[in-house]
């Protein structure tokens, strides 16, 4: 299944320099607005888990910084592996898979509003790719999380919270 993700990711065309610069100039404003909308959702706690609001805010700042790095030198393997890491780590900490659908839809709406039509057309496929592949990322990380819980060392009681 990961191979299929990599194959699909290889088909994405990196945005042109002008679109990347536009994203670079606007992501902070978009992230702030997106975080405000996410935090206002009545089902926030259900999406991110109890006490994970700060982690969700941090993710909304780190996510566009990662996308900017990715757009500048597109590496499909980096895209796939990083998203898998995010799914593993955030699901382990209590985020539900519905969080990604909700948050990515917020991002897509805001990007469409704030970016020029040209930049939007080049950047949207990456976000759409994430949305349509949520079930694959979920299925792959289901197995990782099951392995992890069965291998949990006895001395690691009092486990963690957010990063």
């Amino acid at each position, binding site marked *: 299944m990961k191979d299929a993700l990599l194959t699909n990711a290889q088909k994405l065309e990196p945005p042109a320099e002008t679109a990347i610069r536009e994203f670079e100039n606007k992501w902070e404003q978009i992230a702030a607005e997106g975080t405000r909308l996410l935090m206002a959702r009545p089902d926030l706690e259900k999406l991110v888990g109890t006490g994970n609001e700060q982690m969700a805010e941090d993710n909304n700042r780190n996510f566009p910084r990662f996308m900017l790095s990715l757009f500048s030198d597109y590496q499909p393997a980096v895209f796939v592996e990083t998203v898998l890491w995010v799914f593993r780590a955030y699901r382990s900490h209590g985020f539900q898979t519905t969080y990604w659908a909700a948050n990515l839809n917020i991002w897509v709406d805001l990007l469409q509003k704030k970016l020029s039509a040209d930049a939007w057309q080049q950047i949207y496929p990456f976000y759409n790719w994430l949305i349509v592949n949520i079930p694959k990322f979920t299925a792959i990380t289901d197995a990782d999380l099951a392995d*992890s819980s069965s291998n949990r060392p006895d001395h690691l009681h009092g486990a963690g919270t957010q990063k």
Partner: protein
Amino acid sequence: MITGALYQQYLTLLLDGNRRACAQIVQQLLEEDIEIQTLYADLFQKSLYEVGRLWEFNQISVAKEHLVTAITEGLLNLVYPRLFEKTSSDSQNEKKVVISCAANEFHQVGGKMVADIFELNGWDSQFLGANTPVDHMLAHIQDEKPDLVGLSVSVYFNMPALKSGLAAIRGNFLHLDIMVGGQAFNWGGTEIIKQYAGTAYVPSLDRLTSLIAA
């Protein structure tokens, strides 16, 4: 040599925050004349990677991850008498290296270990620490005139900061050798380095040792 049992004992003590017992293990290994790069790679680095994995799976808290990092940085200090003793007994090579984390990069243990490995191999190494602003790094390079500069980056979203640093160094010091490394390259990104002449990617402490020796 670090046995599996000793590593597990150390990891358990580290996760319990037992700095004193961890220090005793390290001291014992030093008295047994363990190779310093083995100590770094097979005890410090391996345990830090495992702690990162444990955070990923929510088996430890951020507080514990930070505690482990702080303990490990303290344990590096235990190694220094041995490191400088080794350095002084071996031939100094008169070369100087400046190691720094990229701007916005706050994970510094790896860079610190790299600086130590250079010192161990007879270099005069200077470690500038985390999140070094580019202009300050350039001024330091201008003052110190090193033979080599190393940049460390741990998270992929700091690649633009790394690239800015590389461009600034290359733009100001045309013939200065540069090396880069860090966890940010785990899944790719080494192609980025090829955009900067005279810049090499070093994937591990072992590879670093080989390169220094070559």
